[in-house]
């Protein structure tokens, strides 16, 4: 008769053993690869990556109120446009460095969200969405109308000053790559922090059952407002980045409903209310879009938007929680294939 030996206690991987765990070392490897990529890839791909980073930032910012606070915004372009136009107009008129203009723009975006929040935060669901559409549209129309200030439909160009880091301009795409990447990491850090903080927990509770949340002392309006301000701040900053990267802005592209929908789609496709969802969403969508544009280069009108619309409908009908879970499973399986001792920490 065999004597059953007591089961070996679960050994936690200590010290250098941890380095052998793909879950630990692969992110470092990944970061290394990401750092090298802009120097080895063709410009077109670097551009795609920058767009992915940009939309990951936008999607994450949207997620703060759309995902965590369950206030669905279809007007985030309003904040994006405010950021873009503020820094650009300040630079053209006063030579103010867009780095500083960016802060102004972000604060102006927050001011706008304070106004909208005060007026419309009591609204739920579709009514709030409609109000946000209204806000972005009004801003778009005002920007078109007050031509003397904003050049209206003609748009504004960033005066080209060559390689001017202090003026947020670079002749190569590489600095933009690293700036947007850093910005993305910062945004993710903020989202993670919010998620684990009291505010994040409160937002979760509000999303579950607002009445029950209030019964345990949660000021739901205040929590949502905090999330909204953070969201609009980040989005405003992203607007400035875009202006400096694209060298040209005009009302329809930075205030447009299409942009707002795209931002929301990034978060929804990836996974509303998750940290990495918008990143995954941005990855998928931007790759798809850039490939579509490249492959069909203007031969099929509206193809890009057809892709957006179809993706949105398909995701809502088939997988409204987003694809992040699948991606995370795939990632886990990928890690298992790598050399080393895979021991999931979570």
């Amino acid at each position, binding site marked *: 008769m065999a004597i059953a030996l007591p089961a070996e206690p679960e050994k936690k991987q200590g010290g250098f053993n941890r380095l052998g765990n793909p879950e630990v070392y692969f992110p470092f490897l990944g970061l290394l690869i990401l750092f090298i990529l802009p120097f080895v890839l063709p410009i077109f791909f670097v551009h795609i990556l920058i767009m992915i980073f940009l939309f990951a930032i936008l999607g994450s910012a949207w997620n703060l109120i*759309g995902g965590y606070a*369950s206030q*669905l915004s*279809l007007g985030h372009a309003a904040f994006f446009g405010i950021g873009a136009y503020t820094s650009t107009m300040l630079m053209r008129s006063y030579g103010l460095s867009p780095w500083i203009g960016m802060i102004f723009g972000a604060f102006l975006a927050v001011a706008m969200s304070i106004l*909208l929040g*005060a*007026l*419309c935060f*009591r*609204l*739920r*669901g*579709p*009514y709030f*969405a*409609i*109000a946000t*559409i*209204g*806000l972005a*549209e*009004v801003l778009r*129309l*005002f920007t*078109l*109308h007050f031509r003397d200030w904003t050049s209206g439909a003609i748009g504004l160009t960033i005066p080209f000053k060559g390689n001017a880091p202090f003026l947020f301009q670079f002749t190569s795409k590489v600095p933009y790559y690293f700036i947007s990447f850093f910005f993305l990491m910062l945004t993710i850090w903020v989202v993670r922090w919010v998620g684990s903080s009291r505010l994040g927990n409160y937002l979760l509770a509000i999303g579950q059952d607002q009445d029950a949340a209030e019964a345990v002392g949660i000021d739901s309006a205040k929590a949502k407002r905090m999330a909204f301000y953070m969201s609009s701040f980040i989005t405003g900053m992203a607007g400035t980045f875009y202006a400096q990267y694209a060298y040209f802005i005009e009302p329809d592209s930075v205030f447009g*409903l*299409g942009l707002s*929908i795209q931002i*929301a*789609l990034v978060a*929804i496709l990836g996974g*509303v209310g998750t940290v990495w969802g918008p990143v995954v969403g941005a990855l998928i969508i931007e790759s798809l879009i850039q490939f579509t544009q490249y492959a069909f280069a203007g031969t*099929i*009108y*509206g*193809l890009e*938007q*057809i892709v*957006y*619309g*179809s*993706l*949105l*409908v398909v995701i*809502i*009908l088939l997988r*409204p929680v987003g694809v992040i879970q699948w991606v995370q499973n795939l990632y886990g399986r990928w890690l298992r294939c790598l050399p080393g001792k895979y021991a999931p920490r979570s």
Partner: protein
Amino acid sequence: MSITTVWQALLSGLLNGAVYGLLSVGLTMIFGVVKIVNFAHGEFLMIGMYVSYALWAFLGIDPLWSLPLVMAALFFFGMGIQRFFIRRVLNAPDLAQIFLTVGLSVLMINLALFLFRADFRMVKVPYADWTFSLAGAIVSVPRLIACLGAIIFSLLLALFLLKTDVGKAMRAVAQDREVSMLVGINPERMYNLAVGISAALAGAAGALTMSFYFVFPSVGVNFVLIAFVIVILGTLGNIKGAFLTSLIVVVAESVGVLFAGADLGLAVVFVILVLTLAFRPAGLLGRA
């Protein structure tokens, strides 16, 4: 700013307002019966316009004569949208409901873009330039016809809802779904009907304007944004409210642009909307 100008604006507002009314009653009916905000409602109008245009361009049929065809086509299209798409998110959270119809809207607009390109298209009818004068203001005959058509269809809708059994059944579902099931009404069928009828009305609104307006893929967007303002102001689900409010809002917009400038018309409407949502979310006629 003379009194004539204001009178003209008022009159234009009333004429246009009726057409918006036709669009809005459909939107508010979908909300009342199916309990969903249809962000793709403007596209029903757009499709109606394109169908009307196509029938004119290829078969030479005047938009007014092809109206029944347009309405029939939109009716089945609307039912299809409800049956295959909207039905699946009726019990889903807000996010799904909102973004489904948003996605459908984007899809439809861009399919139209793909099929018809972005060009503005117009129909040429013999009476396009007929006008007459009414106390100093100029009334355009096509617009008047459109207005009358809109009023007629709205009245027909009212009759349908008030006097026919099916209409009453629909109102029952709007009031209380569970109880209406208890008396043998099939809510699903009512939903299909509601969206079908609304789409037909929206299509009619579009077709009616083809004699003096032009169609392009995103024509529905501007119309529907104003329609949102109207239905919210007129209290969601309230059909009478929607029609009356249409007149009020469009007249307000017509007069407003005299001061603000023509391109800010939509902005004026939206400011009205945001203020309404902030202070009286249930609309002018509703309980908060």
